[in-house]
């Protein structure tokens, strides 16, 4: 046991050294002019640019907008995906009718639809929200359906013996039985939500982190590009962690999450 811990520690040290060496080299290479700062950025420059953006106040409206778009699109995808998933299982005819259309829409690469979304909703808030919605809704829908169908027949039998009403059967048996699978979908969708919004903002927007990113790119401000990439990554990871946290709070007592 002690040996294993020691081994792990050594690996961690090695990992930290690798990162430090990489950062050190970036700093050295840019500052001595070996590599042009158009290609990579010195870590200190990334920090300075980031601080500038934050202190000058330029960052916040963009950050806020992107977060709002993600939250709105994701909430919409979660709400509709989960609701529709349960409706499909409760009314199999509905699934039969809708699933062909859903499969067809799902097969379209979402980013290719962006031009249409812009035509329909403009380049503002709405087109972004809709794209994020499209990115997430099918993952959530199909995971919910799988979960609700998995609700074992034995659970339903027990409920029938106790004369559960239809509502009780749905909310006290089917929904909790499907929860693990629903959260699976929510987690996967959270991981892709940022991809959608950043892509859309880079293509066409007047604000947002994606817009900032392409602006920095156009100005050949590579340090700022690095900073925004790091920021977006952190938001994305944080988002997934929040969903996992909710899952933990809801399910950890009875499930090993």
């Amino acid at each position, binding site marked *: 046991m002690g040996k294993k811990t020691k081994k792990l520690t050594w690996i961690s040290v090695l990992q930290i050294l690798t990162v430090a060496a990489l950062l050190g080299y970036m700093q050295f290479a840019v500052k001595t002019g070996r590599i042009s700062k158009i290609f990579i950025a010195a870590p200190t420059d990334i920090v300075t640019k980031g601080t500038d953006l934050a202190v000058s106040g330029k960052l916040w409206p963009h950050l806020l907008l992107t977060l709002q778009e993600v939250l709105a699109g994701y909430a919409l995808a979660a709400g509709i995906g989960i609701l529709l998933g349960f409706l499909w299982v409760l009314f199999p005819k509905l699934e039969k009718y809708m699933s062909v259309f859903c499969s067809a829409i799902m097969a379209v690469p979402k980013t290719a639809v962006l031009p249409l979304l812009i035509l329909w909703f403009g380049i503002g808030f709405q087109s972004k929200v809709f794209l994020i919605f499209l990115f997430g809704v099918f993952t959530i829908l199909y995971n919910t359906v799988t979960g609700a169908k998995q609700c074992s027949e034995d659970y339903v*039998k*027990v409920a029938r*013996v106790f*004369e559960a009403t239809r509502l009780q059967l749905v909310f*006290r048996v089917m929904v909790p039985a499907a929860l693990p699978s629903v959260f699976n979908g929510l987690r996967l969708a959270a991981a892709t939500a940022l991809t959608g919004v950043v892509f859309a903002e880079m293509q066409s927007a007047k604000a947002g982190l994606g817009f900032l990113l392409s602006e920095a790119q156009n100005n050949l401000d590579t340090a700022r590009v690095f900073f925004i990439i790091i920021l977006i990554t952190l938001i994305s990871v944080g988002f997934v962690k929040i969903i996992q946290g909710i899952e933990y709070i809801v399910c950890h007592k*009875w499930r090993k999450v």
Partner: protein
Amino acid sequence: MPTIKISHLYKTYAGSDGEGTDALEDISLEIRDGEFVCVVGPSGCGKSTLLEIVAGLLKHDSGSVTLDGVPVNGTSRDIGVVFQSPSLYPWRTVARNIALGMEFSRVPKAEQEKRLKKYIELMNLKGFENKYPGQLSGGMRQRAGIARALVMDPKVILMDEPFSAVDHLTRCTLQDELVRIRQEEKKTVLFITHDLNEAVYLADRVILLSPRPGRIQEEYTVSTPSPRSRGDEYLNHLAARIMADINRGSREEAPEYSI
């Protein structure tokens, strides 16, 4: 007078290939108020099918099942069921699982707690009320499944191999517990088991079903008064006789199944 009356019951499962499976054939059986009837028979002969029909969980093809003269037509508050596998809800604590039926039928909270306490003690689950099923042993889960049925105080209890997953020692304790409960609370019990010694130890009457399709092959009345002793010579002898009849039954059926 509460009686289960089954007459000329037939059940065939529809198969996907058009070939149905005949599960039950011409079953007629009357279970009197307060009687303890065990059903035994080879695996796949239709015991669980019979139980689910009486429970109102499964529709039969022809014949009739009545409880107190009223046709069984869907599940009923008067009938409690203990399933072959307890199927507790993993997202509920043991106590909330046992309270499931009371919750569904909106029994007041105070009353729920009172009854819970009694059956948790009775089933020896004290200290595990707030654990989740995933944290229990197989035997504890079965006991929770039994408590979940008993706590609703049904007149009739249907039990499908309820002790199959417990070790021998726990099994004996649970059997004695069941004998006590049904004497104290005057329950009518239909009990399915594979274990002939268990059947003769518990039952007033043992019904032997033939291999599929299940027909009533033989009936045995066990008149030994309780408390019974496990080593009882008459009971052992009866179990051996049932065993012999089972073997005879499957031999007679043999030609049907060969080739």
